[in-house]
């Protein structure tokens, strides 16, 4: 079952063709990594899927819905969550609050329920809290539960951001360089965490990643991108040995 499909997607900024007729599709439950040199258009691709930019041509179909007029804030409700390379968190809030706000996309209460904290709001708060605690356990964030983001090291912030994305209960999560800024030990843990997200939560993962070790250990398939075009897509080993990929990296 296909969860995400890109058909001939192109976007240009002025005269720069950032993405040029990119097509690929992703299966439900798959981990697909995007690799490529700097400026290949990897993050642009993410920004297209999450609707920060509009397409010039082509189409993006997520879960049988074409993302055409979708606004960026509607992406979460459809079931796509994302993280950013340099993290975008609510820095003056605790880890728990950052996760809880991720849950709120599924809110079923109205202003009156909340103002008077009616039964419905209470029940919902319990469900959200339980959901957040599950994610805290999954990512081993217990000791940081009440710490404000500003006082956390970068590696933990990256995990919190992944956690917040998971709290949205997405079908697909876009991870932008999850290992950048992590130490080798944290990167090693990330391998298992990505497996858990895939196996335990059944969430498909599309990630941009440079660490080839992490890519080979976690990805079902790898897509190589250079100058806005797809070079090849396939098993990690095949992609790494592909002559054009080697050429793109080494010039």
């Amino acid at each position, binding site marked *: 079952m296909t969860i995400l499909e890109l058909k001939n997607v192109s976007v240009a900024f002025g005269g720069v063709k950032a993405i040029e007729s990119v097509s690929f599709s992703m299966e439900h439950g798959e981990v697909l990594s995007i690799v490529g040199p700097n400026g290949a258009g990897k993050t642009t691709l993410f920004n297209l899927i999450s609707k920060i930019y509009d397409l010039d041509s082509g189409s993006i179909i997520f879960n049988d819905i074409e993302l055409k007029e979708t606004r960026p804030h509607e992406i979460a409700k459809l079931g796509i969550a994302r993280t950013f390379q340099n993290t975008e968190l609510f*820095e003056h809030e605790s880890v728990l609050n950052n996760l809880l706000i991720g849950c*709120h996309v599924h809110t079923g209460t109205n*202003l009156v329920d909340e103002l008077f904290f009616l039964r419905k709001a209470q029940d919902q708060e319990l469900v959200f809290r339980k959901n957040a605690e599950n994610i805290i356990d999954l990512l081993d964030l217990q000791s940081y539960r009440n710490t404000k983001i500003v006082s956390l090291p970068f590696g933990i912030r990256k995990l919190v951001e992944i956690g917040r994305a998971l709290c949205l209960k997405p079908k697909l999560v876009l991870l932008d360089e999850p290992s950048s800024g992590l130490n080798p030990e944290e990167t090693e843990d990330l391998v298992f965490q990505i497996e858990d997200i895939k196996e335990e939560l059944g969430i498909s993962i599309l990630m941009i990643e440079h660490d080839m070790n992490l890519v080979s250990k976690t990805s079902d398939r790898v897509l190589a991108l250079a100058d806005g075009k797809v070079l090849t897509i396939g098993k990690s080993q095949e992609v790494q040995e592909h002559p054009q990929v080697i050429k793109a990296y080494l010039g």
Partner: protein
Amino acid sequence: MALEEKLEHTQLLISGLSQGCVYGLIASGFVLIYKATEMVNFAQGDLMMFGAFLAYTFISIFNFPFALGLVAAILAMAGIGALIERFAIRPMIGEPHFSVLMITIGLGFIFRALAGFIWGSEPRSLKTPYAGKVFEFDGIIIGHENIIIVLGTLALCSALAFFFKTTNLGKAMQAASQNQLAAMYVGISVKKINSITWAISAAISATAGILIAPVSLIDPQIGFIGVKAFAAAIVGGFGSLPGAIIGGLIIGIGEQFAGLYLPPGFSEVTAYAILLTMLLIRPHGILTSVQIKKM
């Protein structure tokens, strides 16, 4: 002599407190919009003036019952605030801050001209059920309108605090003010939040206008106390709502005492003197979370 002085001080403290509450409320309006959009709305004082005039129109011209007129004026101003955001501010997203600032100054002119055109420049007085009545004890005279100002401010601030703490909308507003990109990707419509912020901010200003109307008459120029409220917002630490109220109180009370102890005319510049002193000794204000936002 000592007793008389004490009485006078108490009296000044009370009028300073109520004047300060009004500054504080307008300052909160500044802060709300600044936190949500990083823009300073220099028409904040004029929104207050317009709100007071609307209340005057509903109550004194259309003969609405006081409470109904009050609510109608506040709701109408909330609507006007949301419309300003939608049609004057939102199209300016991505433009330099200075251009947006010029727009808000321009909006101030428009509101003053409009008010002059509709209601004329004659000062008007808002009929309230409590105007002119006083409490008197131990020689201290407290006007009911002063008490209403303080109580009204307290009630409004508690309501706001409660709203931000308990409701999803309040939490979403805080989230969007901390990080718009992140807010968008947890499913918060930042545009909608900005409209709501402007609506709330205009409603608060209108409330301030209605509260102060019985004390100082309404005319198209009363919006200029917005400049003093701006000073109050900075003194409080631009970006903190409780700070805005505290800043307002300091300036309100400071003004009254400057009127007593300093030569005539000084009370008018007290707000700015306090502002400059604050900038010298504690540039980030009394209460503030110094935060550097990623642009």
